[in-house]
């Protein structure tokens, strides 16, 4: 029994060491790729280049009198849905983009802006418009998640700007 456990520990340790080494080797590249993609997505939402010095790693950032950017997570049908949200001060509207999800392909993946124009078509919608958003047939939980994300975004902006 002790021998069995020792062997399993040794194999597990070896696999762990390989993973730690690979993680150290690839971490810099992965971080750079993720940041570049996040910047590209935000610039696409804003319709303009963002300042180089802007810290994109925060959960909420931007200016309360212009544009605020947020990262949100809401529960979906098959796991968390990760979103990036832009709030505009001039008309208090939102634009949402999903950056990660596990919704069912062909049913709940209409929220992925690279597959479907459903979410980009809602760009510029106000709080009331998001609250009155219809469910997509067959994807009630995913539709609820989008309404919840919009409500959460408005709540975060208010909390951030009132503080």
């Amino acid at each position: 029994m002790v021998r069995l456990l020792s062997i399993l520990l040794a194999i597990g340790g070896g696999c762990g060491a390989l993973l730690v080494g690979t993680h150290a080797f690839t971490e810099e590249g992965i971080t750079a790729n993720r940041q570049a993609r996040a910047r590209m997505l935000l610039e696409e939402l804003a319709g303009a280049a963002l300042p180089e010095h802007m810290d994109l790693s925060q959960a909420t950032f931007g200016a309360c009198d212009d544009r605020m950017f947020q990262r949100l997570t809401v529960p979906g049908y098959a796991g968390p849905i990760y979103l990036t949200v832009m709030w505009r001060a001039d008309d208090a509207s939102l634009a949402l983009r999903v950056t990660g999800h596990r919704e069912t392909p062909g049913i709940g993946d209409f929220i992925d802006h690279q597959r479907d124009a459903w979410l980009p078509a809602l760009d510029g919608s106000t709080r009331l418009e998001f609250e009155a958003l219809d469910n997509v047939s067959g994807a009630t939980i995913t539709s609820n998640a989008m309404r919840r994300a919009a409500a959460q975004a408005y709540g975060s902006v208010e909390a951030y700007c009132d503080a």
Partner: protein
Amino acid sequence: MTPNSEILRSAVLQRNPAWAQLLGLCPLLAVSSTVVNALGLAAASTVVMVGSNVCISALRKLIPEEARLACFVLIIATFTTITTLILEAFAYELYLKIALFVQIIVTNCMILGRAEAYASKQSIANTFFDAAGTALGFAIALLMLGAVRELLANGTLLADAHLLFGPAALTWQIDYSAAKLLPLAAYPPGAFLVAGLLYALFNAARFLRRSQDPSSTPMARQPDQ
């Protein structure tokens, strides 16, 4: 023919994981919409297949019989994670397209099957050739399906090759986009249709070869090595 080349030939042709054993069909059908996607998954599967099977063969005398499946899955999962990390670091756009199917390589019965049936009982050299042959067979199936589907659906070949080979590959695309013969081929039903036709073609070639060579035995009757 040397024993190693015989192992390789048998793994690619007689025991082709996709066309002879119908293994690993989920990623095969899902990712093979273009040649570049197919190449990406083929490369990732090859790394996991060869790396994990050689590792299992090297450790075969150490791995306890009663815990062998757990050890195999642990080793395969390690190589799958390594491949995913490398892909995310060095081919990010391609990673975004095929990441889901790279991550589920760990559950691919083609890899676990060869680990259990071959790598855990054979020498490192034999295992290397068997794993390389199986991976090559899978890659050939992926590329055939990817090429046919991309041609039928988009009228192109090697579109987006720069995602895998860098900016130099931007000019590699072959464009026949004026003739999009079967747009359905880009979607899952089209994948099943094309895969079915290629499977029939592969079987016809095997039966033809068998009828010309009476000494060859049916694949199903061969003992698994």
